[in-house]
Each structure stands twice: as C-alpha cells, then as structure tokens.
C-alpha cells in the first residue's frame, strides 16, 4: 500500500524539521508553564476552596454535606494530579519527535534516500515506542501513575458514596446493599460446601467395616 517514493525524503525532512522547531519551542514552554502553574494552583486551592471543603457541616444534613464536600475535594486533588501525569506523556512524545528528526537528519547527512514512506513511518513508530518504554520503566513515572490512579480511585469511591446517598431515597437497593448480599451468599456457599464434604466423609466412615476408623 505504501508505495515506493524515491526523492520525497527532502520534502519530508523539511516538514519534520518544521515540526521539530514547533515542538522544540512549544512543548518545553508548555511543560515549564505546567510546572509553575501546578504548585500555584494547588496552593491557591488549599487556601480557598480546600478550606471550604474541609469545613465541618452543621445540622440535620451534616453527614451528607460532609460526604459531598469530601468527594469534591477528592475530585479536585485528582484533577490537580492529572496534568503532572499528562506532562510526562507529552515530554516522552517530544523526545520521540526529536529522535525522529535526528534520524531523518542523519539520513540526509549519510545521503541515504528512503525508498518509501514506510521507512519514515517505521522510524516514527519505533522511536515513539522506545521513548514511551523508557518513560514507563522510570521510577518517576511509576510513582506518578500510582499517585494519579490512587487519587482518581479515591475520587470515584467518594463520589459513589454520594450517589448511593441520593439513591437511598428511592425504593431500590444500592451497590452497597447488593455487596452485602453477595458477600453473605459467598460465605454461605463456602459453608455449605464444607458441610457437604464433612457429611460425605462421615458417610464413608460409617460404611467402613472397622469401627476404629470412625474415630480417626
């Protein structure tokens, strides 16, 4: 499908050089902006909305109110953590693009004329794969992934509780109710199996001729 394309290397190279100039200037600026803005946002949040969300509730609805505020706070913490995770992906993407351009420039220096567009595509795929694999293996990424995942799950868990509060007004069982049923059924099935096996063992033993074996 990807046909032989002699002579197109120069055009592609200029295109890629242009992209590199763009990524080289925009990505680092964006990454730097992220790094500056994120702590500021987190600090501003802690001093404003954060305080409000942690404020004790009052009166009849205080329990529901506090659960809702905790959910909103968990959501805010997740949203603050998410860009840090995304920033690492963007940086890996930028490194990959730099490497692609480096390979293309090297081809030009070595006067290697690519035969097909597939050559460029393969470089692009392999450089991206390498860049992301290196990122994924890094301790920093693993920590960020774990932190983002943890905060996302905390937000979901707390939001689920708020939704369950709302659903409790209706005449339907909530997930929490159903989970209690599932757990009880699981333990009952286990208990029944155990009793069935004990019964079978007893039956076998009573069918044995030597009464002494009954004791063992």
């Amino acid at each position, binding site marked *: *499908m*990807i*046909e032989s*394309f002699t*002579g*197109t290397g*120069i*055009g592609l190279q200029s295109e890629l050089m242009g992209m590199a100039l763009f990524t080289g200037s925009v990505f680092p600026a964006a990454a730097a902006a992220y790094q500056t803005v994120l702590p500021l946002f987190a600090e501003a949040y802690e001093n404003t909305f954060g305080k409000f969300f942690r404020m004790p509730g009052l009166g009849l609805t205080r329990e529901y109110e506090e659960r809702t505020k905790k959910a909103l706070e968990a959501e805010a913490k997740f949203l603050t953590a998410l860009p840090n995770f995304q920033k690492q992906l963007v940086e890996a993407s930028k490194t990959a693009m730099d490497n692609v351009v480096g390979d293309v420039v090297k081809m030009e220096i070595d006067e290697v004329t690519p035969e097909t567009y597939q050559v460029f*595509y393969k470089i692009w*795929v392999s450089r*991206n*794969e390498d860049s*992301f*694999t290196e990122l*994924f*293996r890094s301790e920093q990424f*693993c*920590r960020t*992934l*774990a932190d983002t*995942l*943890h905060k996302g*799950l*905390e937000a*979901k*868990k707390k939001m*689920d509780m708020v939704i369950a509060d709302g659903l409790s007004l209706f005449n339907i069982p909530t997930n929490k109710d*159903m*989970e209690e049923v*599932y*757990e009880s*059924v*699981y*333990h009952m*099935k*286990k208990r029944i*199996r155990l009793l069935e096996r004990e019964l079978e063992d007893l039956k076998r033993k009573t069918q044995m001729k030597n009464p002494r074996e009954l004791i063992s």
Partner: protein
Amino acid sequence: MNTFNEQVLAKFTDEWIRASEKLTNGLKLLLSANESNGEPTEKYPVYREDKMTIYHYEPTSENICPTPVLICYALVNRQYMMDLEPDRSLIKNLLKLGMDIYMIDWGYPGKMDQFVELDDYIDLYLSDAVDFVRRETGVPAINLLGVCQGGTLSAMYTALHPEKIQNLVLMVAPIDFGIDDSLLNIWARHIDVETIVNTMGNIPGDVLNLGFLMLKPFSLMIDKYVNFLESIDNPKAVETFLRMERWIFDSPDQAGATWKKFVSELYQKNNLIKGELIINGRKVDLTKITQPVLNIYAEQDHLVPPSSSKPLETYIGSRDITTAAFSVGHIGMYVSSKTQKELPPLISDWLWKRSVVVRH
C-alpha cells in the same frame, strides 16, 4: 522545485487511489465477514461448578495416552486461544498425538464473584477439577498442563497436592515475580491494590487489557492496524486477524479478592518462590513438586519474560526437569506456525514417556 512537488503530488495521488481501492475491497470483506467463534475442535461440557466448566475433547487418535491431561488456563483472557483456528490449534495437534484432553473454562466472574479468593481457585475449583478428571478416568494422578497464570496456579496446586499430579507441564508461566524485564512487574509493585479493589469490586477486563496495550502502545494500538491494512483485501488474513482480535478483547473481569491476593502476594512480595505464600492456611512449598516437570517458555515474551519462568527449576524438588525455549512471543507460543509444528510433539512425546498406566 515545482517539478519536484508535481512529482510528489502525482505519486501521492496514485498511492491514495490504490490505497482507496484496497480499503474498499477490504471493507466489502469486513461487511460480509462471517466471524467464526473459533474453537473448531469438538468438545463437550462434562462438569460445572459455579462459573467453572470442564470440557472434554473428543479423542481423535486410536492410541490414547493412559494418563489424561487437564489444561488449566489463566484467569485473564479465554482458554480458546489454544484452539483458535483449525490449522493452528494446539488442542487439535495434541489430540492427533493421542492426548486425552480436559480443559478448564473459568467463565466470566460477575459482581457476585468479587469475594472469591485465590485460595478458592486453587483449593476448591482447580482441586475439584482435578478430582473430577481422576474419578472420570480412574487415574489416581493425572497430568496437569498450566498455561500462563494458569501455570502459576498449577504449580501452587501441585505443591499442595503432589499425590494427585503425575506430570506437570507449564507453558509461559510466571514463577519469579521479582524481575524487572517486564513492565507489568514494575508497575504492579507501585499500585495500591487495596484501593483499586475496594473501589471497583472486580477488576474490569478492559482495564487489564488497557494495561497490556500500554506495554507496547505504538505497536499494539497503531502499528498492528497499519499492518492489517496491508492485507485487508486478503480473506484468509482478515479472518485470522478478526479471530485474534476477538480473543484479545474477550477479557473476563477478575474476581476482586483473587486479583488482590495475586498481585500483592506475588507481584509485590514475590512470596511464591520465597515459600511464604499461604493458601487456605497452608504454606505453598515448591520443593514438594517432585514429579517430572516440563517447563516451556517464550524467548521474546514481554508479558512473562524468560527470567520469570526459567527459575522454576531452582525452587522445585523434582529431579526430572525438562526446559524448552521457543523463539516467539507470548501469543506466538499458541499460534505461530513454528510452534504448531514443534510444540505439540514436544509435549506429547514428553508425556507419553512419563505416563504410567494405573487405572482404578
């Protein structure tokens, strides 16, 4: 410069037209595709317990191995990978070589199963499956073939109930989890399993699949489909691709309690090889595996690298250990033409030599 651009444009147009023709033919094929369910080899359900079903494959050879084989597949993904296509079926080839095959289908755990423990899979379901095959065939100790995570479960079971297993065969089975060759092992050490399970109950198959795709994101999410476009007008290639695609994304959810123990005890603490894994109050001691063991691994496996499978021989008590490596990836172990030629005879010859005729 203008001439150059005109040439480029002309070639682009020409390439685009031909690509469009190819895509049109491919789309016609996809529109009329009668996607097969796979599993071409005849089999019958012979035992059910909760979500687990045991299938027995109709023997196709006159000379049948005296000791039956029970195949224990992973809880992740489905067992029909071993019988995906008529001309690339490990099951079909093993049957031809006289194996009497039983296969565990773990089913699809639902919310009701979120409290099912790893201990239940080993000491209840797998144990009952082994006992069923023993009863059914009158053989006191059967052959157990564990695949991938099913291999880990099989090793645990054999260590706990060695008297019921005559020979143990492991295929691409993770044993040593303290390795850094696979991203799965690295990521798993950092995740908070407690919060994941408390929030989600069961672990959705799609979430696990996303994790597997992220191990090689560009190869598995882009390059694979670009390569598919190359052969989209070839009916046989499309059929094979669709079957594989169906298998890859047919991912059962994982029972929360089981997943939690598997990740925390194995991926995070590496307790299996340390001899500190407890199943139903009993320590899993790998040195209790004294029967013959055939350990097969894939040299280019990115999910279960050789460094995770190979160390088995260091930890078990058996003196009859055969290790075999294939120059393929994890999935290639089941479907590559090379392994289809070499793997079934390897397993069958090895088992035939070690299967003792003792029927009750």
